[in-house]
């Protein structure tokens, strides 16, 4: 028997209540612990780094009610190396500028795939959660099949975080001239 998938519905403006309740102001919900606060345990092996950025709509206005989730391989290219939720993280963007900050380790590539972090974006006005990827401008990206499938250099660059000192910047543009490439995974 096959069944129809449950249709996606927007996460709405209050997704933070459900997914990052302490951030949303529900004091001490779930013991005050926010799920996905840490991508890896602090003793995980690899090059630790920080990725920061903002999330913008078609007019360049910050999308302050967004929630982002991240999923990545570890420094040896394995997903979920020990089961559990290592390699997964979740962020509420901030209420003023819609910025996020992710502390994690640089993933290794897997096969032809260059090192990247998968991102999933939900917010008010997004009917179906948007998938994209964060690649890194100082890594070897030329064999990556996804990047190779994008001809337009502006589109391609929307997937590549730029290194600035000890951190990377990666902005997400939901629409417009700098629109991020989104994926049908």
């Amino acid at each position, binding site marked *: *028997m*096959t*069944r*129809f*998938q*449950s*249709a*996606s*519905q*927007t*996460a*709405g*403006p*209050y*997704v*933070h*209540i459900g*997914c990052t309740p302490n951030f*949303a*102001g*529900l004091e001490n*919900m*779930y*013991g005050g612990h926010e799920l996905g606060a840490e991508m890896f345990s602090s003793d995980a092996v690899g090059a630790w780094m920080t990725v920061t950025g903002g999330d913008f*709509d*078609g007019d360049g206005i910050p999308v302050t*009610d967004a929630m982002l*989730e991240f*999923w990545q*391989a570890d420094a040896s290219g394995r*997903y979920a190396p020990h089961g*559990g*939720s*290592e*390699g*997964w993280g979740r962020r509420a963007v901030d*209420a003023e500028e819609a910025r996020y900050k992710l502390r994690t380790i640089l993933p290794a590539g*897997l096969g032809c795939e260059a090192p990247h972090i*998968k991102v999933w974006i939900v*917010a008010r*006005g*997004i*009917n*179906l*959660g948007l*998938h994209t990827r964060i690649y890194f401008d100082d890594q070897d990206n030329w064999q990556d*099949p*996804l990047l190779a*499938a*994008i001809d337009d250099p502006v*589109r391609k660059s929307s997937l590549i975080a730029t290194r600035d000192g000890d951190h990377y910047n990666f902005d997400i543009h*939901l*629409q417009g001239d700098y*629109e*991020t*490439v*989104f*994926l*049908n*995974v």
Partner: protein
Amino acid sequence: MGLHPQALTPDYRSSRLRSPNQKLLSLPPGQGELTGPTFGHGLIGPNDHDLIINYAAPGAAAIGEQIMVHGHLLDENARPVPQVLLEFWQANAGGRYRHQKDSYLAPLDSNFGGCGRTITDNDGYYSLRTVRPGPYPWPNGGNDWRPAHIHFSCFGTGWAQRLITQMYFEGDPHIPLCPIVQSTADPKAIEGLTARLDMANTEPMNFRAFRFDVILRGKASTLFENKLEGN
């Protein structure tokens, strides 16, 4: 098969500037799409699934019609999706969210936070206890009211199955009027998002039960033929 809404649904005004203009880029699923995080039962506190008491003062309870919502998390081939995290959030019985940006005049309930979570069992079964949320007005077309609804966040076994949706209540007259519900366009999809009164599991003199199954995309082996259509 998927009956997901298009990104741009102009009657839902927020989608106008938050929908990509470009088509989604398709790619075959790799290891990272077929795997995903898992969460053990150890994560879940005994009252996490019970919104009536999980934010209430000791001995107190949230105000509203007490209900149980339950069902199965399945994939498209009707296989149970066991041991995955479900998260819920909703307005209180008066239609007010506990959020700084919700200024609706219905009062907050000091004993209601509005979020909960659980992990499906080995049969993909879940249940939560809550108060039935109130409908609420929202700034969209001038006089738009959301049907009563509970937001559901669902993990699957793989990253590509991640889903957020909303559950509505059978018989709600706002369902056909709501631009967010109607973003799905297909009556079968809306039917699939509508919980049914379940008298068989309604506890006499206690609470009413509603049944609501959530269907995710197929798992690893079938993901490839279950690509989203029309994108």
